[in-house]
Each structure stands twice: as structure tokens, then as C-alpha cells.
């Protein structure tokens, strides 16, 4: 996958980016249903275009949620109030349908309802075993979001891209950083660059060894500054930022969206489980990089296949690793859900909503069950 000398680019966006806004609305709906009824099965999808928010929700269970009110709250909290796209004035078209399917948490032996390739990945680029470009991009995106608090000309809609030079399979330098942010009022380019350098670039890399060097090219609004931006300017849709949600295109990911799906869906929790497995392999010191792939088929609980790819960095045969993972973990959807804490127990409020932005794997801030690999790494080491 990696040649000896290459540059890899990953991107991340702020909460106000229309695609991410859709992701966040979808996941906020999942949360709202599960807070009322922890066993609710819900799938919510969202699209925003021409100032209209479209939400389609299919659910079973006892919960009842005022979806437009919730969507307005998310939009307002993302910062869209007043000029341009406005949470209060947006039109929201919801399509509700109550599924006649089963409700409640997954049974242990309930088969998969979708045909899914679940991929998980881990590598030694960073402390949380994530690829360096996406990790840097998320830090920048968070800093860009945070900068709105101090620099009020920044609009909620922003995007960052980070290009990292790899040499000998290790990230060695950041060659390019691009920051695109919409503005609420015109700002002279020099002033904007100054503000972004101090408010975004500096804090984002403060405590990390891989940071921008004097040679790093920084592009501020390379396509020209945009006023307001956001949904008034471009459309958004749930699930279009699957790369940002996972490994920044550095590793494979399933084509289906994560956001907006309740944890009864194997295409949401399968990738988490695979990440857990891959991270454990790397954390156990059994490989420098690892990708775990579980293939689920409709109507079957056990995955059809479970494979590990260590890209030639493995200390054991890949087949052995796969066998060890299959033994150490129960890969049936119901068991996956239980392992990850989705067995009908209540979560912290806003659990999924928080995942919608800045990645769903490799997070240090949420205490996610699929990042906690201590036990599993030990088992693998011992195996």
C-alpha cells in the first residue's frame, strides 16, 4: 500500500459542513430515540439542499421524537442562526415510517440484516494507533471549530486538508495544510491568515511531534473566501464523509454510511469491532499495521470470513492472527453489540451525536469501547 516515499492527504470538516451537519442530525435522532427507548431500532438519513432539510426516519419501538425540533436544535448548535441558513427559518421535510420489524436490542444469534464488509485498521503512526494524516486533520478541524469562539468572523462551515510525507513507511513531515473556512463578513486575507495561524495551526499541533515545519505550505481559502457558506451554498447528505469518519482514506472502509444507523445495524457496529480487533493486533505488538476484514451475509450471524492483513509487518502469519481473533471475539451481530455496550443499556446522552464529527475511530475523548484494547491485546499476545 505504501511506497517508500509518498505523500498522503486526508481531510476533515467542521460541524457546520453540510455533510457533517446531516451526519450530526441523523445521529442526534438516533440518540433521541435510544434515550427514550434503549432498544429502539432506528435509521435516520438526512439531506440538506436549497435551504430545505430532508429527514427520513424509519424506526420501531415505543419512542416518539419531535424530529424537526431536534434538527433545528442541532443546526442552531452548529452555529447556523441569523444570516444565511437559519435554524429557525429552515424548512424541514420529514418522512417517518414505523417499521413493522423487531424492536429491542439484538439477540445473540440474530443474523445480519445486511451484506457488509466491515473493515478495521490500526497503525503505529500515532499514540492511538491511527494514520497520521487523518489524526492531524481532525485536530485542525477541532481547532478551526474552536477558533469561532474567539474570531467571530468565521462561519460554521470549514474544511481542512493535511498532506503528510511518508518515508520508509513512517510519517516524517507535513508538506501542505489547507484551511478553507466560510466567513460571516469579509476579512482581509492577511488578517485571516494571521488569525488562523495563531488560533488554528498553533494549538492543533502544540503537543505533537509531527507538526508543520517552516517548509510546510499553508493554504488559506485556496478557492477564494466564501461568505456564509454552509447549506445556503452547497448541499449536504448523510454518509458522504465516510473517509473522515474512519481512516481518512488511508485504509479501506465500507461504502455504507455509519452515521444515522442505530447499533442494531451490523454496518454500523461491524467496523467498530474490526477496529477493535486491528488495534489490538497492533497494540499487542504483533504487527506495525493491521487491517481486519469481516464479511457478513444476510441471514447469517457468523461472518462468512474474517481475515487480517498486516502488510508485511506482521510477526505471526496472518491466518493465525485471524484464527486468534475469531476465538477471542464473538463476531455475531448480537454479540458485537453486547461487547460494544449496545445491549439495551442506556448510553451517555448524545453518544452517537458526538461521534458524528471528528471521526468515529481513534478518538481519545469519548472512552469508546472499541478503542479499549487492553484485555484483547493481552489475549492475543498470549495466544
Amino acid at each position, binding site marked *: 500500500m505504501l511506497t517508500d516515499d509518498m505523500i498522503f492527504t486526508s481531510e476533515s470538516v467542521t460541524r457546520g459542513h453540510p455533510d457533517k451537519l446531516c451526519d450530526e442530525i441523523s445521529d442526534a435522532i438516533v440518540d433521541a430515540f435510544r434515550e427514550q427507548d434503549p432498544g429502539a431500532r432506528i435509521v435516520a438519513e438526512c439531506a440538506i439542499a*436549497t435551504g430545505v432539510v430532508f429527514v427520513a426516519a424509519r424506526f420501531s419501538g415505543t419512542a*416518539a421524537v419531535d424530529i*424537526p425540533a431536534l434538527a433545528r436544535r442541532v443546526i442552531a448548535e452548529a452555529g447556523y442562526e441569523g444570516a444565511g441558513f437559519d*435554524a429557525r427559518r429552515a*424548512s424541514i421535510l*420529514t418522512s*417517518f*415510517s414505523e417499521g413493522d420489524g423487531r424492536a429491542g436490542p439484538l439477540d445473540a444469534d440474530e443474523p445480519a440484516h445486511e451484506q457488509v464488509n466491515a473493515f478495521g485498521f490500526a497503525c503505529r503512526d500515532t499514540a492511538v494507533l491511527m494514520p497520521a494524516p487523518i489524526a492531524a486533520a481532525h485536530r485542525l478541524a477541532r481547532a478551526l471549530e474552536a477558533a469561532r469562539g474567539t474570531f467571530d468572523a468565521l462561519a460554521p462551515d470549514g474544511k481542512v486538508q493535511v498532506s503528510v510525507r511518508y518515508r520508509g513507511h513512517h510519517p516524517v513531515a507535513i508538506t501542505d495544510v489547507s484551511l478553507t473556512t466560510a466567513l460571516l463578513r469579509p476579512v482581509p486575507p492577511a488578517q485571516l491568515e494571521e488569525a488562523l495561524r495563531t488560533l488554528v495551526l498553533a494549538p492543533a499541533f502544540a503537543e505533537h511531534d509531527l507538526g508543520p515545519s517552516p517548509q510546510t505550505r499553508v493554504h488559506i481559502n485556496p478557492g477564494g473566501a466564501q461568505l456564509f457558506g454552509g447549506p445556503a451554498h452547497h448541499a449536504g447528505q448523510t454518509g458522504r464523509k465516510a473517509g473522515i469518519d474512519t481512516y481518512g482514506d488511508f485504509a479501506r472502509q465500507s461504502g455504507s454510511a455509519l452515521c444515522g444507523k442505530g447499533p442494531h445495524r451490523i454496518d454500523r457496529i461491524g467496523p467498530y469491532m474490526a477496529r477493535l480487533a486491528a488495534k489490538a493486533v497492533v497494540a499487542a505488538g504483533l504487527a506495525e499495521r493491521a487491517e481486519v476484514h469481516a464479511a457478513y451475509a444476510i441471514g447469517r450471524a457468523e461472518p462468512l470470513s474474517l481475515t487480517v492483513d498486516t502488510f508485511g509487518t506482521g510477526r505471526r502469519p496472518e491466518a493465525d492472527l485471524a484464527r486468534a481473533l475469531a476465538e477471542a471475539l464473538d463476531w455475531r451481530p448480537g454479540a458485537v453489540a453486547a461487547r460494544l455496550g449496545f445491549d439495551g443499556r442506556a448510553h451517555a446522552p448524545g453518544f452517537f451525536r458526538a461521534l458524528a464529527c471528528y471521526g468515529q475511530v481513534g478518538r481519545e475523548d469519548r472512552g469508546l469501547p472499541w478503542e479499549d484494547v487492553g484485555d484483547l491485546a493481552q489475549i492475543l499476545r498470549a495466544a
Partner: protein
Amino acid sequence: METGPAPSTVCVQTVFVHVAVAGRLRLRDRRLMRRADLCRALRVALAATRPDLAVEVSSLTGSILLHAAPGTGAQADAEALRAFIEDCIGAPGDLPPVAHALSAADTAHAALPWHARSRDAARDALQACDDGGLTDTETAERRARFGPNLLPKPRARSTLAVIVAQLASLPVALLSVSAALALFTGGLADAVVIICVVALNAGIASVTEHQAERTIASLADFAPQPIKAIRQGAMLALPPADLVPGDILLLEPGTLVPADARLLACENLTLNEAALTGEAMPVQKDAAILLADAAPLADRANMVFRGTAVTGGQGRALVVAIAGATEIGKVQAMLGALEAPQTPIERQLGEIERELVVVNGVICLAVAALGLMRGEPVLSILRSAISLAVAAIPEGLPAVATTTLAVGVQDMRARQIYVRRLDAVETLGAVEMVCLDKTGTLTLPSMSLAEIHADGRLMRPGTDAADPVVLRLLETAALASEAHMEDGPHGQRIVGSGTESALIAAARDQGLDLAALRAAHPVLELVPRAEGRKRMSVLVDRPDGGRLLAVKGDPAELLARCTRLAVTEGTRPLTEADRRAIGAANEGMAGRALRVLGVAVHDVGGDPHAEADLVWLGLTGIANPVRPEVRPVVVALHRAGIRTVMITGDQSATAYAVAKDLGLAEGSDVRVLEAGRLAGLSPDVLSAIAENTDVFARVSPGEKLSVVQALQARGRIVAMTGDGINDGPALKAANVGVAMGADGTDVAREVADIVLATDDLNGMVEAVALGRATYANIRKVLRYLVSTNASETALVLGAGLVGIREPLTPLQLLMLNLVSDVFPALALGLDAPEAGVMDVPPHDPAAPILGRSDFRRIIREGLVMGAVSLAGYLAPAGVPATGRTVAFHGLTLAQLLHALLCRSDAGPLSGAGRPANPYLALAIGGGIALQATAQALPVTRRLLGLSPLGLGGMAGALAIAAAATMANGVVAALPPPLAPPPPEPASC
């Protein structure tokens, strides 16, 4: 005209001709002779000031004929009228401002419009008194001068006018020529018969058309609500027709302004002026401002105008113009809107008629040419051609639509569905979408307690009667309430806000004696809800000497002040888990569209301003219940292929719950559009979205119009129900505006096309069914008339081609066409709806009433009847008189029986089990009897040129009828059935 009664000796040139006939006044003035312009001006002036009178002015004779509506007594003001006419003729230039020019002092400002005058100036000009209003004498004097405050209405033509119009038609002209020719050739009897036939036909047509016109004229009749006005120092409720300039009006929400008036005072007054200016949003008024002369109508903020409606605020206004002098009266006079406009079907049928006239004219010429080629006598050719023309030209097709629609109107009226525009009947049949206004239409006006959450359980009131916590909760809620019972005419009723009334009603239904409860707990202090305080507390004395604090309000706010939880066994401390469970229950109830209130109590009392340490009793969920009769209506509309759309000001969750309850989305996803601001959406986007939306939530009243227009933008035929003042513009914009009767405001009814007097939405289904049936009936009549006419053409043309002269005599043709045809056609127009009328989708509104395939079928059926008759003619082999007789009877019978086929589009077998049409049975029976009589009596036999028939002849006639009917019936029954208008595969 300000000089008082004219001295009769000097200048009276207008004289009474007679005043004897009640309600009529005839005058004459020689100055009007040969002055068409003057006559017109006088007519306009009279119409404007006295719309209650019908005016005829003749420039030929100089006569002026005034008809008064019965009971208004034109004679009483005969002299005033005469003087008025005298003045008009004397000074025609002064005519228009007649209602304004009141006093000599005023003439100086005559040109100054009212909005440019100060309030005082306006008052002075009209000699009005702000506080007391006009005195009775003033009122009487002004009423005599200005007449009643009525706008001219379309009136039914007089019987004579209808008959004259009938006689002035093309067929009658042709028949007159025919009669003259008959006289010329010595056929006196023929001429007499022709005249009789013409008279009979015109008589029947006149009667039906007159009936229809009376129905149409009565459409506009709608007793207006009385208006609050000040007269003689008192507030009265006056019929709007009684208003005179100078009256003081009191305006309040819902008032339909009955005259143009200058505002004297107002407070937050807003009006909907859509009727006049087209502006859908309410207009803010201001009594104090003074406007420039040239201020456009829409900007005259210090005026209110007839036909507009008060949407908010209060006001007082001085009437400055009434009747025809009002702005809307002027518009009406300008448009000449006194004739009911033609409906689209009438226009279509007019076109069809014109086409058929041309086609048949050419055929007649062809028949005549064939005759000439054979060297037949010219006169006889001419008579035959004219008879054929009369027979083949389907006269009065538009009238078919008019009379059938009018029958539909009467049918609906019998079911308490009042139609206010004739074409609404037709449009109803094509309705594709119904917009339902939630409040008032779909839900009951009152609220009721739907759910209780207490002691950790969700319960429905009534089912857990024994639960002590529920009883305690209801008791406390009843104490913490300002609603009370009152003795009303129908027993006790609850007076109070919706939610409190619902709680009280639930407590009563649970068997609590409220009066005793209240009496035992006298109120010490009541602290109401306030800004930032979403709860209400009542501190009461307990019968045992202690005190009790009853609290109800926002669940979260209340729960924060509770420390204990009431359970069946008493109370226990409130745990974190309890709080979470209550919070979840609250969310769920809110999600089910309930208004949720928490109830808590403190058994010892405490400060009602700072409640603390309360015992949590439970949650109450109050619903705005759906009317039970609405669900089947929605199902019926869906079965009829009509989409239902709900428009509501509620939040999505509430709207969704109601929509789901009603099955509005036909079992699929419920799509809810909650627009923050519809105006912010581009019309294209809105109409694209609207097309697929089931519920429009949080729609402000003014935005209903946008919704209706968005639906129409896609070419949909939209009906809209409504009852509120603000529904006016949307009702007007909808293709069919339906006002809900009993509680509806006047405004909604005024602009609606249909009024459902029973307030029962089921009327909507009936109205659509009748609309569809009426449309279908028009098609049936058309099919019958055009195909029978075609059969006559086919017979005569076919006979001409095979060299037979006159297969039917002219009189036979007339008899056939003008007598036998008429009654079955009328009966078809009265046919009952077909059983499946509400099981099929609406017809394509863009398709013509008769499509290509319909015409193909009609011509095919005509050809079959004509061809079989021709065969019947030829059968007796060479005896023309017998052949003619057989063909005449055969074709007549075939036509009568054909009416049965025309009852259904789907073929003769589909009608099994349908109620018979008694009118049709009568018409067919009568037709057969008529034929038998004509054949039996020697005199009619002679007149019609019939020869005696033997058994063989009779059998021949019957065979013709049977063969033609069978042939057409079999083809009609063949699949694929002929569906109404195209597209469809050709079936012939």
C-alpha cells in the same frame, strides 16, 4: 339634485306612465329618445344607486321600466325615483359620485376622495355624529335617497326571455323555413305540425333552462351576518343591506366589511383585502393618517372597503359609500360581472356544437346534392335537407351542461352542501387533492385527557379507576385549576381553558364530586403561571384544619421541586431512576402529540410562590382528539384516488400523531414539511416538495395560500377546507374552497365555493361523488344525443347513397329528434351516481369531456343504429311507405333503448344491481306509448305518413331495435372497457 323636489310645472319632463302593477314602475322621458348614450348613463346610475331594481331603458320609446324585487315596494319611493331620473337626464355629467354628494357644503370637496379627508371633515360631510350615529329620521331619509346597500346580482332571465332565446335558435329558424315551404306547397297540416313540434320543444327546453337559471341565480343567496353599528345612540346589529352613508360601523375580528367606510378609530386593526386587491397578507390600518388624493386603493390605510374582512384588532368606521358606489361595486359594474360566467364544460360543449354544425351542414348539402343529381323536385329536396339538418344538429349542448350541473347543485343542497358557483360542481368531480385544515376540520374543538403516568405506570383515564394515586392526582389537578362548572341550558358545562377543562372533565368522569371538593377546600391563595414560571399553585384549607398546596405545570420545572413520589402504598423518596423514568415518560407523551402537565402536592401547605419538597403525583397528557367521523372520510377519499394533505399550525410531532391516527399517508411514510418560513423557499422548490408532502406543519395562517398555490403549480386540482378568517385567501385560491359550516366564520363562507352546513367532513366525500356523477351524467347525455343524431344522419345519408328518396319523412325526423329524444336525455341527466364512482381516480382535468375514443364510440353507435334501420327499411322490399314506417318505429325504439346503454361507460353488464333510473323508465315507456299511439290513431298516421303495420312490420321494427341495441351492447361489453377520456386503446 340638491335642490329638492323639482317644481313640477317648470321642468318635469319625466312622467309616470303607470304605477299600478305591484313592483313595477313605468316612466317616460322624450329626451331619452334616440339617445342611446343617455339611456346607458341612466341605466348605470340607477344600477349604482338602486341595485334592488331591474332597469330597462329604451332609446326607441324613451320609456323607463323599473322592476323591484318583491316586497321592497318601489312605489313607495316612486316620486324620489322620478326626481332622481329627472336629475340624471338633466345633468348626466354628475352621475357617478351620486352617493357621495350629500350636502351643499360637500359639493365643494366633491372631487376630494374620502381617504384624503380628515376624520372630522368626513364626519361633517356626511353630517354624522360619532357617538350617537344617525337618527331614525336621517336613516329613513338616506335610505330613500340611496336605496339599500346591495350589489347587483346575476338574475335569472325572465321566462319570456328564456323562451325567446329558445325560439331564436338555428334549428327553429330552419324549421320555420320548413314550415313556410310546407305552406307554399300546400301542406297546411305539415306546417301546423312543425309549429307544434317547435313549440313543444321550445317549451320543454324553456322549462328546464328556466329551472336551471333559477338554481344558478340562487347560488349567490346567502344570508349575510348582521353588522354591529351605532344608530340613535345605541349599538345595533343591522342587516348589511340596511346601511346608509353616515352610519358608524364597529369592526372586530371576523367582520366582513359591508360598505366602504372611513376609519374613525382603530386599534391594531388588520384586514384581509384579498377580495379587492389580491393581497393575501393582512393589511395594517391606521385611522389617524391622511393620504394624498392619488393614493392607490391598496395603500388607503384609513379606509375599509366592502368585501374585505377584519383579521385582527378593533375599529370604528364611518360609512361613506354603499352598494354600487363602493369600490367593489365599481369593479363589478366595470367587469359587467352580472352574468354568471360560462363554466369550462359549457365552453367545451359550445365548441363541440360548432364543429358538429359544420360537419352535419356538409352532410346535409351532400344529401341535397345526391337528390339534385337524381333530378328530384327542388322543394322536396330542400325540405328533406332542412329536416335532416334539424335532426342531426345537436342543438343546445351547452345547455345540457348547465341543466345537469344545476341538477347537481340541487342534489347537493338536499344533502346540506351549498354550492356557490356552478362550475364548482364540475371542478369537484376532478379534485385530485384535498387540503384539510386540522383545527376545526379534523380535530374536535375541545381537549381531553388521554394518558396518565403515575406510580411508574402509563394509564388511560377510566381504565384504572381504582388506582388511589390517579384519584389523588385528578383531585389535586382539579384543585389547582381555575376552570369551573356552570349550569348551562344543556346541563352542567365546564368553563375554562382547554387543558384545565380536560382535567376537570376527567376528574368528573372518574366520579369526583367537584362542587363538594371545592367547597371542602376553600382557596387561600392562588399563584398563576407567569413569565418564567411555568406552573400554577393553589393553597387551600383542608377540611381537617390543615392546609394543602396543589401544584400543576411544566413537568421538568415541577419535578425539580419534588422530593417524594406518590405510590399506591403512600409516598417514598424520589430516586434518580424515578426522575429518569418520569423524564422519559414525559418525552414519550410529548412525542405522541400530547400537552403534558405534571401534578404535585404538598400535604402540609407551604409557600405557593416558592414550592418545595413536593410529592410527585404524576404526568397528565392532554390531547386534541380527532373527530371520529374523519377517519372513514379519509379512507373514502383515498379510495377515490384523492390525496389528502393536512395543513396545521402545530408542531411536527403533533401533526405527525394526528396524521398517523387518520391514516393520511395511506399507510406509507408520513411526510411532514415543517417550514420555518415558507416565503423563504423558492416557489419551484416548494411546489416540488409539496407534491410529495402529507402534512404541512407550523404553517402560519397567511402561508396556507402559499401551500395551495404550490400544489396547484403542478397542475393539480386542489380542494381546501377551512373555517377561519385567515383561511379566506387559501379558500379563494383553491380550485374548490370548502367552508366548514356550523362554526365557520362568515369570511370563509363568503369566499368558499362550497359550504358544508353540517360541519361534517363526510359532506366532502358526498360532494365529490356528486361532482363526479354530474360530470358522468353530462357525458351520458352527450353520448346519447350525439349518437342518436348520428344515427339519423347515417340513415338518411346511407339511403341517399343507395338511391332511396326520403327514408324518413321530414315530420318523422322532427318527431324522432325533437320529441322522442328529449325525455331520455333529460332523464340521463338525472341518473344516480354509478356504484363505483368513488372507487376510481379522478378524471384528467386537462382532457376534454369527450375524447377521441368517445367520439369514435358515439359515431360507431350512431352508424349501427342507422345501418340497422336502413336494413329494416329495405326489408319490406319495394314498398316505401311500409319500409319507412318500419324504419321510423325501429329507429325510435332503438334510440329509446340506447338510452339504457348510455347509463354506463363500462358496458351494459357492469350496471347490474344499480338502482333503476325511474325517470329513464318513464321516458322510455312514454316514448314507446307515444309511438304506439302515433301508429294506432289514423290522424297521426296520416300526418306522419305512416302506413298500417301488420305483425311482420311490427316484428321488423322490434328487430331493428333489438339488433341495434344488441350490437352496440355487445361491443360496449367487450374488453377493454371504454374508460372515460383517453389515453386508452382503441376498441373499435
